[in-house]
């Protein structure tokens, strides 16, 4: 009877090892930020073109979704438009005994989108906070026309949502009237159709809407998100875009990461609309 028990256990383990072998060699998987999904796909395409036999699969879902996938082991690389939170690092540590490896891969300016017809030229961080927490509700309160401000934002699984909440709202909650949309393209589309709308998202998506200049405070100059202002950090809503790994990169992942950080990979980031690290 005992022999049968051990044989069963051995059989199950053999099955698991075989199944694991079948999973192996599926290439590199990259999952996470919707802001970075186009950038990630372009990186993957060019890398695969230059490295025959290499497979890199890129999918979106939001930074939060990518981090969850990194923790449960369903992706090799998480791409995130915000730093990992402490509780996410603890979850990763709980499973892998490591706090993860953070690799900045590009820079981005988080744009504030306005309708082309909106007369407001610039806003301070404090005004943006007031607008998105619901204490400022009419454009005339910030020098615009007498019209209700319509808020567009991202879902809470989005890294852009997290960055905006942490750096503009200082952690406060968004106003209940803020309409959440599944991607930056959808935010841009909504603002382009709404003369009283305001939205936020990666600078690379600004098409059919107008970027609003941002001031750190009332005394600071109004800064537009440009290559120069994002690169030197003078634009107040400058952020890094990250790749996260469970442990230091090895093998194919290490090669891919080295290429992303190489001049060729960084040039591609600029071509897509983002900014290089150096």
């Amino acid at each position, binding site marked *: *009877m005992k022999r049968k028990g051990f044989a069963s256990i051995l059989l199950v383990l053999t099955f698991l090892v075989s199944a694991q072998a079948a999973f192996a060699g599926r290439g590199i998987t990259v999952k996470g930020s919707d802001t970075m999904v186009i950038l990630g796909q372009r990186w993957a395409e060019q890398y695969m073109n230059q490295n025959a036999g290499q497979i890199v699969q890129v999918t979106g879902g939001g930074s939060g979704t990518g981090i969850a996938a990194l923790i449960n082991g369903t992706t090799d690389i998480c791409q995130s438009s915000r730093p990992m939170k402490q509780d996410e690092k603890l979850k990763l540590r709980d499973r892998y*005994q490591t706090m993860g490896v953070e690799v900045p891969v590009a820079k981005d300016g988080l744009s504030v989108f306005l309708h082309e017809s909106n007369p407001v030229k610039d806003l301070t961080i404090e005004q943006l906070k007031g607008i998105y927490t619901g204490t400022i509700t009419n454009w005339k309160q910030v020098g615009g026309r007498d019209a209700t401000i319509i808020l567009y934002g991202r879902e809470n699984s989005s890294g852009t949502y997290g960055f905006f909440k942490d750096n503009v709202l200082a952690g406060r*909650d968004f106003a209940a009237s803020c309409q959440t949309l599944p991607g930056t393209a959808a935010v841009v589309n909504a603002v382009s159709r709404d003369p009283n709308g305001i939205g936020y998202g990666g600078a690379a998506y600004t098409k059919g809407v107008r970027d609003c200049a941002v001031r750190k405070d009332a005394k600071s100059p109004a800064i537009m998100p440009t290559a120069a202002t994002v690169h030197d950090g003078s634009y107040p809503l400058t952020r890094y875009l990250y790749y996260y790994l469970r*442990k230091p990169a090895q093998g194919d992942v290490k090669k891919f990461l080295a290429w992303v950080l190489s001049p060729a990979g960084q040039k591609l980031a600029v071509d897509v609309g983002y900014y290089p690290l150096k």
Partner: protein
Amino acid sequence: MKWMSGSTFAAGLLLLCSLVSPAAAQEESVSEADTAHVTHAQLLRVLEGYTEQIQSMTGDLEKLKKIKFSGYVQARVENGEASSDSVKVAGSPYAVTTANLNRFHVRRARLKMTYDTGALSQAVVYVDGGADRTMRLLEAYVTLLDPWTPLHDHQLTIGQFNIPFGYEIERSSSARELPERSRAENVLFSGERDRGVKVVSQWTPRLQTTVGLFNGGGVNSADFPTTDPTRGKDFLGRVRWSQGVFDVAGSYYFGRNIVPLTGADVMTDKERFGLDVQAYYSMPALGGGTVRAEWFLAHEINSDSVKALVVAPATGNPVRLLKAGANAGHLATDASGGYLMWVQNVGDRAQGVVRWDTWDPNADADHDQYSRWSAGANWFFDGFTRVTLSYDAIRTEARTGSKWTDPQDNLWTLQVQHKF
């Protein structure tokens, strides 16, 4: 009958006409629309209609997204060293006990529902239907987040939840590397949960404090699982310093225990100290690893002392009394125990673990100590399913004639867990 048939036929025809007419009219208008240009205004109206529908559905979806379900199932095959085919029948009414430990077993089948408004409060209801197939409430609590700090650094929780003492208790069974917690924790905090209130404060990213008040019995208490016989509440405090690769915490618990007797009850102090440390490291070729240790010191009711000093009620003598000459002061004893464990990841999907744990329920008595060596391997089949193979070598003492021997009670466990 013939008239009836005619009448029914006529009514059917009428109904058919009434259904067909609007369809025909619609067809006509569609064909008209086909021949005319669709104006910008008409298109906008159609789009606005769709936008309203989508906004309505989005609103409903947002409400549903606040309800989150999670849980896990742990199905096992257990192979016990002392297993046999014998069945014992004893007592009146009779009770059947089996010595066999070779079995298929569902250890945990848990479902957690969280209602997260995303604002300043959260509610959780958590049930378990594993083990004895009875659905029981594990946790039910409300958490309030402080509105005055951006990251809600202070949180108050009230209800039934894990007792925030030490490290092992609050760590989910679905995350633990070995199938069961240490013996010391199992005895001191049986069931791991109690009813009470706690305040968790994150003073800095590294410093966290927890204070709480509890009924004191715990959910597995034989006498008081949901009630509290004393007006005073048990107090708990914990300070945790978390550096990231090295965490350390000290815990303290003080309360009162009642041994219910026929006549005057006996009340004793209950005091527990805990110290836990976790150190993490990473090896490039293998992956992460951790060494953890936790130690408990306690002074509290000892179930063996209760058995020895209290006369249990029987059919002919339905009273519960201290034995003649028994010293009530001996019901509570000094106890100590803890564990030391090592976990090593091997790549992303495999993990090895070794643990030694010990428990001494009475520092003044011999032959009642418990110790166990456990070794296990985890295989992460995918992101949600884990297979665990573990072996527990348990050392206790039982009297056989004039000798004390270690009973044959070592255990193999093969567990498949799916977490969702």
